[in-house]
């Protein structure tokens, strides 16, 4: 897997944790999944992660709180939010806070790819 950028998925929902890493691997990335922000913060992956697919509403530390924490730690990790919520204002709000994108669940693989391309600033070819 050397040379593959690492994407971490942080989501308390098991369906997402089971499905998303496989798709990311199909897209050519390395991927790991965590069920909470706390678990991610305590892991070794935090140093290698280049991009975070992050749920917004989670028990304990929420997505945006994790984002702030990472910024405080001076880590430069691109954040793509994935949310099950319906609130149309959430996306604009999250982009303003420095997110790359905010995807509403369920999302298509095209939408995911597009967001990942922005996250990696298009300087990586996929497939």
């Amino acid at each position, binding site marked *: 897997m050397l040379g593959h950028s690492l994407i971490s998925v942080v989501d*308390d*929902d098991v*369906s*997402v944790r*089971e*499905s*998303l890493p*496989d*798709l990311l691997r*199909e*897209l050519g990335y390395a991927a790991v999944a965590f069920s909470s922000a706390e678990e991610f913060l305590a892991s070794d992956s935090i140093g290698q992660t280049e991009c975070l697919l992050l749920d917004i*509403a*989670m*028990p*304990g530390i*929420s997505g945006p709180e994790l984002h702030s924490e990472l910024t405080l730690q001076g880590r430069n990790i691109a954040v793509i939010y*994935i949310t*099950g*919520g*319906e609130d149309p204002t959430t996306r604009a709000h999250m982009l303003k806070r420095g997110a790359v994108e905010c995807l*509403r*669940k*369920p*999302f*298509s*693989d095209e939408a995911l790819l597009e967001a990942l391309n922005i996250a990696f600033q298009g300087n990586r070819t996929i497939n």
Partner: protein
Amino acid sequence: MVDSAYAESQLPLDTALPNGVASLDSIVRTEEMLQRPSRPPEPEKENSALAALVIALADSPGTILQTLADKVLEVLRADSAGLSLLTKDGERFYWAAVAGAWQPHLGGGTPRNFGPCGDVLDRNAAMLFTHWELRYPYLGAALPLAEEGLLVPFFVNGKSVGTIWAIAHSAERKFDTEDLRVLQSMGRFASAAYQTVESIEDLKLEVAAREKAEASLRDLAGSLEEQVHIRTEELRFSEDRWKRIFENSAVGIAAVDLKGRFVMANSAYQRMVGFTEDELREKTYLDVVAPDFQPLNIALMTELLDGRREQFNIEKQYRRKDGRLIWVRNNVSLLPGADGSLRNIMSIVEDISERKAAEESLQHTQARLSHAAEVATAAELSASIAHELNQPLSGIITNANTCLRMLDAEPPNVQGALETARRTIRDGNRASEVIRRLRALFSKSTLATENVDLNEATREVIALSSTRLKKDQVVLRVELAKGLPQVTGNRVQLQQVILNLLQNASDAMSAVGDRPRQLVVRTERDEDDGVRLSVQDAGVGFDPAASTKLFDPFYTTKNGGIGVGLSVSRSIIEGHRGRLWAAPNDGPGATFSFYVPGRSNEMPSDLSPAARTFAQDSTARNS
């Protein structure tokens, strides 16, 4: 005008106001009292007190003022209570009757022109005082000091002759508008009592005069004392005095004989029913009772005459002479005659048509509110459902995408594709589980009462609220008692109450940042095979003084909250013959609990009006 802040800080007078006294405004709290949440009326207690007073007036008029003070103390749960009468020269008030902590001060008094009683007579209105000794230093000697004193004037022939009052010595007891209403009603009684006492005084004078005039005949008569006694008895039970009591009363009073025929009725009663006293004498009490209430009235009257009860209270409708129906509150009791054997039945009647109209309009409003709350709940629920469904749907779509890509690869990754297909099925099942829970919540008839397992009902609500609770960073602890008895009720309504309580608890903790937002949902067995459910939060809590107001429609401590939830919830629980209440925690936050009786205590076939309107409302919406 003295700065009122001095009085409010309750500094000793000599340091705060070396050259003056506290202003009247600074010790008056009447306006504030009108804003306080008022305690619920206790009509039975009040009626019994009123009945006891009327009987006392007949039996022992000499002590009627003291009885009145005792009853004020009891009904208002005051620490002290009493009556002040203006002296004949109009210079002073003297405390003619005192009950409670101030009893030792009986016979004391205040100057007409410099004291709370005088203020009340000047303004010709009820007033609430706090720490009056700040303005009237001589009251500093009347211990214990009065934290609050509520005074109501009373009148005879339009002239104010005194005040009736209640005092709280501790800060715990705060008088409210309900206390004011009760005290005013007793004030009206005081007017009647006062005139009777005056007539008793006249009677004593008359007896004294007779004694003097007949003193020389004492030896000859031999039994003057007996004669005086007989004469006194005659006067005591004279029609005259009864008339006086009857006519001066603001409430309707009527007496019927043991066959139910009217013997007499005061003018207030005559105005209520529209018949003159002469017309009434031709009738029985049933002739003025609306047909709907006759069976109940007959049953209660039979119990009274059989000696199975001494009195009863009933709210019923009268049919007036003009055919119009009015609502009245009625206290009926047996009245022993002078010789102890002849008995009449006394009926005390208060016109409550206005209150009933207000209640009906409130009920109507509540029905509309409950509909609004249901709509709001539905919106909340649908957002929650969307979120719950989006999770497995997201998994399904991602898996399907991955599966396609794996099969499309060269060579195809069949093993991987199989795995993603299996996961797709699993997510599909998760989605259908969400749907199943929703069906469980909504497919049941919204009207039916059934046996409800409150634990199961609670689990369903928790499953549907978990997203929102998670979003609100709530740490949920669920403690459901094993072997909980089933309750009979409307499952959906009970679940709406639980949902309301969970949402309120979560909202109450939204500003909490310095401690875990812990929420505990607990079920336990309670008395009579009933079940209690409590929702305990660690939120901002509530002001204990507002605890009765919490359940009012529109009352809310939340910014932007609509506050209908608790009022509707209480209607629902009361419709299940249960109780819903709130209590502050020892630590931070509050606990809201409801109790519903168990199956052995069958639901009445007739739901309470609130539950009925709620049910009707649901039908209207579902049809």
